[in-house]
């Protein structure tokens, strides 16, 4: 996804990437990054939590419009309000994805 941001940016459209893996977005050289410590599938926060979603989107817009240079990264100081073990389980698919299944089978 950070590479998709690069290709769209190279086509002339400024981008910001809102991501739970900002260190990876940096390594992949995304132009502007907002980091969130949220589970996968939840870039803007908890379902139906308008205030939390608003904080993320407003921060993203500020970084999009205001970042002065390539590689700008701002991490949001927001804690996921669900205990880690529960949240870790909750984001994952009910059955392993095909590639995970294949890797597990290849390990025997």
């Amino acid at each position: 996804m950070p590479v998709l941001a690069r290709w769209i940016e190279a086509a002339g459209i400024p981008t910001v990437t809102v991501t739970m893996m900002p260190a990876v977005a940096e390594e992949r050289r995304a132009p502007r990054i907002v980091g969130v410590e949220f589970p996968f599938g939840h870039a803007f926060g908890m379902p139906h939590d308008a205030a939390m979603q608003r904080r993320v989107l407003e921060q993203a817009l500020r970084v999009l419009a205001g970042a002065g240079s390539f590689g700008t990264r701002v991490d949001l100081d927001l804690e996921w309000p669900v205990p880690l073990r529960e949240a870790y389980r909750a984001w994952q698919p009910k059955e392993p994805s095909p590639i995970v299944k294949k890797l597990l089978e290849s390990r025997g």
Partner: protein
Amino acid sequence: MIVDSYRFLPRSFRPFYEGRGPFPGEADPVWAPFEKRLASAKIALLTSAGFHLKSSQAAFDLERERARPEWGDPSWRAIPSGTKPGKIGVAHLHINDEDLLADPEIALPARLLQQLVEEGVAGAAAEKHVAVMGYQDRSLKDWRETTAPQIAAFLRQQGVDGLVLAPA
């Protein structure tokens, strides 16, 4: 506060992401300056959560991915700004879709963006946002050669000044 990028990732997945450096050929900075004031700029959103319109668009092709696990559907969908939550389907085999279906704003906050436009924070919202499915063939060949240029042209046609991308 520095976000822990691996907090929710199974430990065995971490080597697939950490320390791999730039994508081949993608190490140089790319930069398009954001030239307008936010309050007069038109903003689009892009999610990789595999959203599609249940009534009028094909879902991302999960059957082919099941048959060829290294492959992910590289196509994209246009999601109109005013789409009601119940109209959105999710096709993504790597995440649980329950919260996404319950409140698609957690991945594509179109209603919230519209509200910020009404408050004058941003100038306008794109009439149509963009959805892709984030699990892709490692070469990203189709995304690079087809999907990214198509999305950029689609955003340009709408006069979009900036894009907020959110990986699922």
